[in-house]
């Protein structure tokens, strides 16, 4: 009996809930921490980016109007599904980062915990950031945080899973949708994460993941007039400056890269509040 052929996974993009290849047909070789070949990943083009933004925009009305409770449930569901595929993530993270299985296991656990942590925030952030304002007139005056819209994310090059989850979760838990440019160096866990997202009741288009060159795609994302926010966590100084200049045209909210981020530290609410806008409503009293 002949030896069984190995079945290897094709890593594609994640756009609008589907897994298409890049429109450009390009791919690039991904290597592990020691330089060994791991797999070929799709190299997304600016047209894939445009399609991803269209998908994110289409998903925004539904996702932002879902109840906070429902969004929290779905984030928790993502954590459950991630936990269920723990072994696969551990081996992918170990290969990509060149860390031991034990260390990789801790990173995957931390990513699951981070999702659960953000899931809990879904129906609490409004209480924290909203207020009933005393005003000198016959009005109830209420301020509430609202999601910004479509957020473009340049994911951190280090921390292919934990870092990625730590930038996606705070953006979507408040009702934004996003387009993520995954780590160019270690994109494989991001596509496996996409498989988790696709089976977690998360509506298609809420998270779109592109693999490829951040330097090539990020400026198009920063200039795109239908993107409302930009998280430049994974951009180097030169790329970040270029993106910020382009983002000024339609006044995108920009989260600047803050040097080396310690993902294990308590993240606080800063990543959530960066992509919230405050809406204040005046209700007349006694009419």
């Amino acid at each position, binding site marked *: 009996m002949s030896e069984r052929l190995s079945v290897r996974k094709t890593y594609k993009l994640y756009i609008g809930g589907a897994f298409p290849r890049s429109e450009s047909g390009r791919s690039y070789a991904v290597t592990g921490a020691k330089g060994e070949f791991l797999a070929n990943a799709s190299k997304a083009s600016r047209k894939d980016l*445009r399609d991803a*933004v269209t998908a994110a*925009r289409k998903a925004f009305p539904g996702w932002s109007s879902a109840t906070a409770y429902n969004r929290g449930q779905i984030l928790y569901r993502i954590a459950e599904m991630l936990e269920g595929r723990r072994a696969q993530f551990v081996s992918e993270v170990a290969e990509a980062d060149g860390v031991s299985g034990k260390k990789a296991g801790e990173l995957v656990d931390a990513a699951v915990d981070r999702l659960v942590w953000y899931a809990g925030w879904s129906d609490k952030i409004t209480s924290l950031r909203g207020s009933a304002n005393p005003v000198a007139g016959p009005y109830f005056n209420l301020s509430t945080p609202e999601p910004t819209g479509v957020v473009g994310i340049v994911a951190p090059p280090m921390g292919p899973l934990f870092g990625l989850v730590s930038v996606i979760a705070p953006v979507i838990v408040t009702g934004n949708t996003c387009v993520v440019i995954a780590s160019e160096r270690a994109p494989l866990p991001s596509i496996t994460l996409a498989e988790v997202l696709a089976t977690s009741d998360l509506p298609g288009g809420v998270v779109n993941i592109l693999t490829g060159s951040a330097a090539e795609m990020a400026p*198009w994302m920063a*200039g*795109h*007039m*239908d*993107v409302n926010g930009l998280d430049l966590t994974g951009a180097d100084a030169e790329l970040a400056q270029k993106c910020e200049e*382009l983002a000024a*045209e*339609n006044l995108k909210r920009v989260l600047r890269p803050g040097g080396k981020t310690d993902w294990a530290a308590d993240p606080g609410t800063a990543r959530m509040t960066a992509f919230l806008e405050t809406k204040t409503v005046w209700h007349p009293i006694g009419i």
Partner: protein
Amino acid sequence: MTASSNASLRAFLHGLPGVDRVGADARAAMLSTRSIKTSAKRQAIDMAISMVDLTTLEGADTRGKVRAMCAKAVHPDPADPTVPSVAAVCVYPDLVAEARDVVGSSGVKVASVATAFPSGRSTLEVKVSDTAFAVAAGADEIDMVIDRGAFLSGDYLKVFEEIQAVKAACGEAHLKVILETGELATYDNVRRASWLAMLAGGDFIKTSTGKVQPAATLPVTLVMLEAVRDFLAVEGRKVGVKPAGGIRTTKDAIKMLVLVNETAGPDWLDPDWFRLGASSVLNDLLMQRQKLTTGRYAGPDYFTLD
């Protein structure tokens, strides 16, 4: 060709060569893979904008909505005066006067649907008076629907005489004949209906009302473009074509232009001879145009809601 009786019309229309369905589909699909980029794309976008019949045909149309649409027809992008006006606006007869008032002498034509649009189920008197009303209100063009029931049951003379009667009621106004290809079932019927409409005096043949799916598909438009090309060769009169309904993106519009150029020829690449009946495609054309001008992807937040 004289249309003295149903039998002679039938003999002529059924004597037309049949359409190779698979061939028409394959040719339309092949032509739609043409890649139009950079300066050619820019030219195509401007041409497509100048060919749009900006349309609102809803029960909920108001005078205000028509006025807003007409203002947009004259200046599609108020921030960029280099954007051409569209070819025409298309409204229901009772709103023609309102549209006429806004477009004025801008060169944008006012088209009106008539003849019991969209079903065409009424008496000839009603259809003729509907047409006369729209013309009197100031319509430059009349979009009539044919009686599909009569056509499908083989009563070609009835359809022929209705088109002639409406044409007579149009006077100076141009007549576009809507075939409603989505209800004609076969490409052979599309070819026959095209010839019937042209023989009866239609100045344009139009695919659909926009109320029936499928509407303006590429193969159907291909068959109609072949019909106007052949009609010019045989009868010596040039007739225009207007695909309407289902054209939503710049890519759809450019595919149509390629089809015109390759089928009827470049003589038809003119708003007098080819129109795109659509509403949502205009914003996409403007967004693509802005992308070429500014080098950044445009967003729908910066264009009108309509």
